[in-house]
């Protein structure tokens, strides 16, 4: 087992703060985007892109790379930020999020953004594509792994269960799925209107033939251990139910359904950045965006 050293842990903790700052700032500046579900997956994405996955930011189309699909594509700004921090593109490009002509589209587009392995955005679909990649890898005897991140709300889509059933049928042990179990969606789980919740998730995935783990989705060591166990699991796909907090890192956003896609006001943005122990950026966002887009 890989043990995370204190020094590394501190670095990644700082990195998570920076990523959260970018998420909050860019959603504020773009006046659009999904803040809550991006904040909940920060540690998961950092662990994947900085340790777990076999990737090369300089060669994003490398044939033997591990694949990652953000099936909950609305958390795009979270993914873009981690990709930028990992070196797939310049971090300053993040400020063009949701702007016409930008590579930082509201939902990930594999045609324009380096590091995006599959276009997503309509919920419930990414796991099928991931299963297709994993099945294709087996056909071609490739040993890379495919990681898919789904949301718990997303698991209300029937297609998720089609894919779950098919992946265990084809014994896709090269498919590792992480469910961002943040327990909140656009119009809430419990309040004000209850939606059909994903109860007994572990039992359900197990009943469908998946090796299923439950972890704290904000704990790096737990994420690393779970992914290691998934890699070593043979004959069945693995589901990692990552218990997370929607809006994690900003007290007034945590666990609140309103922050699924709400844009913070100037004041809320300042409050959030203060909590994240970051200074607001100095350059007016409009000028940065212009500069980034003119570089293309």
């Amino acid at each position, binding site marked *: 087992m890989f043990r995370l050293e204190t020094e590394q842990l501190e670095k990644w903790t700082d990195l998570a703060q920076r990523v959260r700052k970018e998420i909050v700032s860019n959603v504020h500046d773009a006046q659009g985007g999904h803040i809550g579900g991006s904040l909940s997956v920060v540690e998961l994405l950092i662990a994947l892109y900085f340790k777990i996955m076999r990737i090369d930011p300089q060669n994003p189309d490398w044939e033997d790379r591990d694949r990652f699909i953000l099936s909950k594509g609305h958390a795009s700004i979270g993914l873009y930020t981690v990709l930028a921090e990992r070196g797939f593109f310049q971090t300053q490009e993040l400020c063009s999020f949701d702007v016409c002509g930008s590579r930082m589209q509201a939902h990930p*587009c594999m045609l324009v953004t380096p590091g995006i392995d*599959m276009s997503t*955005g309509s919920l419930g679909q990414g796991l099928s*594509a991931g299963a297709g990649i994993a099945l*294709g890898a087996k056909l071609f005897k*490739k040993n890379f792994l495919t990681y898919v991140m789904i949301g718990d709300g997303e698991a209300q889509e029937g297609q998720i269960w089609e894919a779950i059933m098919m992946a265990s049928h084809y014994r896709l042990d090269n498919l590792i799925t992480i469910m961002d179990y943040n327990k909140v969606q656009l119009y809430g789980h419990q309040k004000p209107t209850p939606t059909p919740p994903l109860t007994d998730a572990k039992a359900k995935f197990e009943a469908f033939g998946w090796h299923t783990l439950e972890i704290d989705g904000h704990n790096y060591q737990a994420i690393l251990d779970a992914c290691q166990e998934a890699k070593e699991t043979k004959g069945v796909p693995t589901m990692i139910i990552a218990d997370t907090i929607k809006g994690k890192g900003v007290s007034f956003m945590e666990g609140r359904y309103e922050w699924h896609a709400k844009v913070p006001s100037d004041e809320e943005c300042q409050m959030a950045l203060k909590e994240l122990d970051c200074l607001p950026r100095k350059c007016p966002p409009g000028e940065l965006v212009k500069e980034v887009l003119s570089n293309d």
Partner: protein
Amino acid sequence: MTEMIAQRVAFAQTLIELGRENEKIVVLDADLATSTLVDKFAEALPERFFEMGIAEQNMFGVAAGMATLGIIPFCSTFACFTAKRALDQIRVLIAQPKLNVKMIGAYSGILTGKTGKTHQSVEDIAVFRAMPHIVTIAPVDGREVALALRAMVDYQGPIYLRLTRDPCPVIVDDDYVFTIGKALLLRDGSDVTIIGTGEQSQRCLVAAEILAEQNIQAHVLHVPTIKPLDVEAIIAAGVKTGLVVTAEDHSIIGGLGGAVAEVLGEHNPLPIKRVGWPDIFGESGANDDLLDKYGLTPEQVAKAAMELLQRRRR
């Protein structure tokens, strides 16, 4: 005696040939293999046949994932499911990223083997015409199906192939060269133009014979690729006679008739009559009864041409 062959038979045979030639070709099925006849592919090349079960949405998603690896997946199911059941999956995972997935719409149109309105597909052309990046092909006979499949493998990008179920006459020549986006002149004439697509083009030829008995020479153009449309050929065929009948086993809204009306309306307005499904759903029944009741027989195509000619004489 005209050779008769079902499009699905030609499809299944050719797919096996292509599969043997190209190891990147795989077939995905949604539990309709003995209907679409891809069961033959499963027997011939079992390691490249993947049964996805009755789960079309997942099947098209799996195909998209495979296509990112350079695999050429053929997704096989009925047209009604390809064009509707899995439409959002096709749109987001295949059309938008232009992935190289070949989508089969078997049992298209009205002649679906007595399965009725739930399984008939009268909107699939309209659906895919309106969707960016999707090439849409509707061959007239088994020979053209085989040629179209070869062209589909050579083409890099998503394609919808519209097929029919039952045996139909082979009408294209031995030496016909199929090209995506090119129409085929089936008969030269000077009195009225009939433009058809899919198996209905063959009924257009029969309609031309009916008209010939009355000394009316029909100019018959077959349009196998509905998108991208052979605009030049359609304008030329229209200008040739000044009157255009369109014929298709599909709704007259958004299908070939709609496409031809748009082209001529913009480039060269001419009197047009669209023969096809009126804006209604169908029912189950025998092929001949359905064709007759819903206005798709050669006689009804010929009648439409006569009406246009009479209108001009007035």
